[in-house]
């Protein structure tokens, strides 16, 4: 668990982070979003003491981080950044094994751990272990970066726009993988991004920052439905907000059981988002869809009324 209590950071006369308080619970993915220069990266880097905070207190699992030596603290916290920061003169395997070696694990255990992580991140050992970072694609390099951050099995993972430099398709793929990974590993993750879609797709807790302060925090749906002010509303996409809400709601949450009515031709998978369902309706000129499962068998149906009308009340209409 990470707790920030009225934490402040000044650079010269500028206040970069202004008395922010924030709690990230164990196993939670907390996304810090905001425009550039809003203090989100500074906040992240104060947690592992790459930057020292000037005021307030930061606690990890109840202990103030100033009690730890900065290096020892950082070896216990995973860290992944946008440029990957892979060492270009080290092979992939050596890069991943960095922190375990700093922690003086025996070589055999480091080797085992590296292989385990490469498997976890879908990087075949025989194909990638001896490659150098310059031989990797952007997505592969970022996977290695995440593997390196996870190497010593830290409880906490700090990620600073890790997918920011990737093309949209690779980015979406890696976001999906991170979601899967998180559901298995249950790390406490602080994730900085300026991409609202990414934050909405990944976050358990969304923290919107502006000019060094936290403007609003809460579950993504809470923010989408009740933005605190115009800034949050515009950051959430203004009028597009509705679609963003649709994009993080699954069809399965809104579908109705099969009725006696004839099933429509147009179909959508139960794990698709409402946004995708809307797209199918728009394309097929349909206001009702059949919902199917993995075997393409119908499991329910979804109407436009159900998508739209059920928005606020959480499905109380019929």
């Amino acid at each position, binding site marked *: 668990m990470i707790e920030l209590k009225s934490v402040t950071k000044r650079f010269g006369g500028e206040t970069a982070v202004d008395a922010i308080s924030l709690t990230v619970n164990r196993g939670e993915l907390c996304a810090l979003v905001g425009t550039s220069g809003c203090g989100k990266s500074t906040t992240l880097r104060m947690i592992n003491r790459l930057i020292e905070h000037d005021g307030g207190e930061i606690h990890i699992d109840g202990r103030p981080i100033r009690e730890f030596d900065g290096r020892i603290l950082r070896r216990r916290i995973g860290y992944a950044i946008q440029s990957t920061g*892979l060492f270009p003169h080290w092979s992939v395997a050596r890069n991943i094994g960095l922190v375990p070696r700093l922690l003086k694990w025996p070589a055999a255990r480091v080797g085992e751990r590296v292989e385990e992580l490469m498997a976890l991140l879908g990087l075949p050992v025989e194909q990638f272990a001896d490659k150098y970072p310059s*031989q990797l694609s952007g997505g592969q390099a970022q996977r290695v970066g995440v593997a390196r951050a996870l190497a010593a099995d830290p409880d906490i993972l700090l990620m600073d726009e890790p997918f920011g430099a990737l093309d949209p398709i690779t980015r979406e793929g890696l976001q999906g993988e991170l979601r899967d990974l998180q559901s298995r590993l249950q790390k406490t993750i602080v994730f900085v991004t300026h991409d609202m879609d990414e934050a909405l797709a990944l976050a358990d807790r969304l923290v919107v920052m502006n000019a060094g302060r936290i403007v609003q925090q809460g579950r993504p749906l809470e923010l989408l439905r009740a933005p605190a002010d115009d800034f949050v509303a515009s950051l959430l996409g203004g009028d597009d907000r509705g679609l963003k809400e649709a994009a993080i709601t699954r069809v399965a949450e809104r579908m109705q059981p099969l009725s006696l009515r004839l099933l429509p031709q147009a179909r959508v998978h139960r794990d698709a988002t409402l946004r995708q369902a809307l797209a199918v309706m728009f394309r097929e000129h349909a206001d009702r869809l059949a919902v199917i499962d993995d075997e393409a068998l119908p499991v329910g149906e979804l109407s436009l009324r159900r998508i739209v009308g059920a928005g606020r009340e959480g499905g109380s209409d019929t």
Partner: protein
Amino acid sequence: MPRRDPPINRVVLTLALVALVTWLSLPLGSIAPNRIVPGTAYTIAAAIGWPLALVSCLPLLGLLALAWRPGRLGYPLALGLTLLLLLALPAWLALMAVRHLDPELPQARLGIGAAWWLALFWLSLLLIELRSRLALAGWRLALLMLPVAVGWWVAAGWLEPLALWQELSGRRGAFLEAVVDHLLLVGGAVGSSLVVGAAIALAMRQNPRIERLGFALLNFLQTIPSLALFGLLLAPLAWLASRFEWLAGLGVSGIGWAPAFLALLGYSLLPMVRNTFVALSEVDPGVLEAARGMGMSRGQVFRQVRLPLALPVVLEGVRITTVQAIGLTAVAALIGAGGLGTFIFQGLGQAAMDLVLLGALPILAMALAADALLGALTRRLDHRTDLAAGAAP
């Protein structure tokens, strides 16, 4: 689909054509009755007769044909012909010596002419072109050059009347000593400039005022002409040597190796400091941030990340400095520092061009060898560029 012939290789075509013209029109060599009298120049035809001269051209004609239609086997064949031409080069001089040197005149000597030097030059360019066409690794080319080297070594036996050879045979001991002196001066100056330069670069990174002052001083030093710098060092060093006996005992004096060493060190410092400073400063900040974020200590970041990543650029500085120092050391001969420059200035004084060549050719060879070796080392160490070609899709 219609079969497409490989296009004409214009580089090989031009080089072979130019080589053919210079080979036939310029003097292959000259015969002089003794060391001082200018010799009589002979073109290849005059030197060994038209029939043999035409034979000597045959591989070049072959190259012309291959350049026109390279084909699948064209490039390996062209490489073979080029190596054959290189192998044969000393033989034509030997033939010329046999035909024209009067055995009654033991002082008579054979000078190497423009056609021969140019042929060597064109053939080297051809080798470079063919090597890149065939994507030949350096060690493979070296292996192929081995028979050429053996051939030249054998041919050296027939070339006793060669003026260069005669200049050398009189001063074998002095020549070896000069080579050793030259290498010691260069090695010493480059080695100490690496140590001193690295120290200065590190100090500059600590303090921007030292940085400005240091670069101003080193840039100023670089603008002093080398002869002037040797002159400027003469008086203070002579004074120091007279003041402190142990310095004189070390061989320090106004002339000799000491001023040469100091001047070389001074000139070497700028490229060394600049490259080391830039190398250390320009390491990707993302990599350094990650290194710190992973929990490496400052020392670990420097030794395991910053230094290895800076090394290729530092080595680039060593390469530039070495090549520069090899050339400058030649001038240092003027103040009695020894080295191969001695022969150059002796030769100039005696109007004996072959003696000048005896000094200049090894300097050229040293500079090329240092450049190639250090360049190869730099590429080997640099993972950012050399492997990028194999990048995954």
